[in-house]
């Protein structure tokens, strides 16, 4: 395994999202690990030490906001990007714990740019 590859944890309850993100982000040179629930996401966050997290909000069981606050409590310097189909969660200030909030789209350019920006920032620090 390439040790320099950045590892991205995707937490989303939709399998189709994992397929698309994995394909597109692998192409960008990232290693992608997947969690289908908030609980699984938290577990992998602790075990796999990802460099960045892409997090859905609306999930059965533990929702993304709760997962976000737990992740930032554990490792505040790991960037977490919210990726939700619903822009209205922006009004909930708990989302401020995240580093970016992106509304899901077929075009992943905004997400890819945000990933690059936040990984570069982490490296600079």
């Amino acid at each position, binding site marked *: 395994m390439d040790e320099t590859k950045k590892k991205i944890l995707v937490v989303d309850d939709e399998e189709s999202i994992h397929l698309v993100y994995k394909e597109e982000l692998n192409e960008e040179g990232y290693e992608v690990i997947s969690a289908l629930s908030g609980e699984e996401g938290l577990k992998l966050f602790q075990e796999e030490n990802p460099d960045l997290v892409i997090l859905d909000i609306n999930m059965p069981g533990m929702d993304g*906001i*709760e997962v*976000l*606050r*737990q*992740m*930032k*409590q554990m490792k*505040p310097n790991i960037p977490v990007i919210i990726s939700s189909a619903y822009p209205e969660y*922006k*009004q*909930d*200030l*708990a*989302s*401020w*714990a995240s580093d970016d*909030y992106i509304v899901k789209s077929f075009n992943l350019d905004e997400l890819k740019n945000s990933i690059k920006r936040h990984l570069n920032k982490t490296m600079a620090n």
Partner: protein
Amino acid sequence: MPELRRDPIIGRWVIIASERGKRPYDFVKEKDKTKGGFCPLCPGHEHTTPPEVLVYGRPTHNPNGPDWQLRVVPNKFPALVIEGELDKRGEGIYDKMNGIGAHEVIIESPNHHETLANMEIDQLVLVFRAYKDRIIDLARDTRFKYIIVFKNFGKAAGASLEHSHSQLIALPIVPQIIQEELDGCIRYFDYKERCVFCDIIRQERSQNMRLVDENEDFITLCPFAPRSPFEMWVLPKKHQSRFTSMDDHQLYQLATLFSSTMKKLDKILPNVPYNYMLHTAPLRDSHLEHYHWHIEIMPKVSTIAGFEWGTGFHINTVPPEEAASLLNKA
């Protein structure tokens, strides 16, 4: 028998359909579980918010440092953006403009667990002073016509974060709800040459059926045609169209009555989610004889569904007389 009631200002109808035997506590659904975890508004986490535009209580010059009593910061994920021109334009019969506005967050206390029901009066004075200071500052921007201040408390009301905060949005237009209220006030004033809110206050004090609380300068009442069970309005007793016209004495009086009102609400409906909205005169209007600023408090105990969306009617299962009686005694 259900009753239809008409709001005297905007003419909105509501259905008062009292559900006999329902006690106040039945309205409190599952209590929000305090989730804990990281809080972006707590002292020490200032780096997770945009830089502050207003701060109270910091004894030393330490911008965005942790020693503060109240902070106001721009919204990290704003609904509208501050930079740019309005560029008003038409597209056939349709009108549009750029989404220009200021969206700010008032972090009301450094204490994560403080709520408006248990906050010290002096801290609440700071909250209202911050509303006033930010409205005065943003009013200098001629692109803005209206500033709405609101609070969401509790997950059902749109805020899963427990840390006490409210929000402010400066808008390039007067919102339709405010415009309808202004139009209703003008109609009433044209007919009677009196402010409708002043008349409501006079009648409610004399009838004492929907009065919740009052002090020297302010009054809390349940409106005659409330949209939600336990809806309350807080109003200055003397005519005043702008929130920003309040002096220090009035700010203190408002904080005192507001604190008492929120304590009463919390006693009757413990930890109930709610929204409140400040309605004040538009920025570009001078002193208005027909308009009276006020705060509308809406506990989130009912659901807005097809009937409400389709008709604009709200169904309220607690008559305001009953709600006021319970709140008054709390």
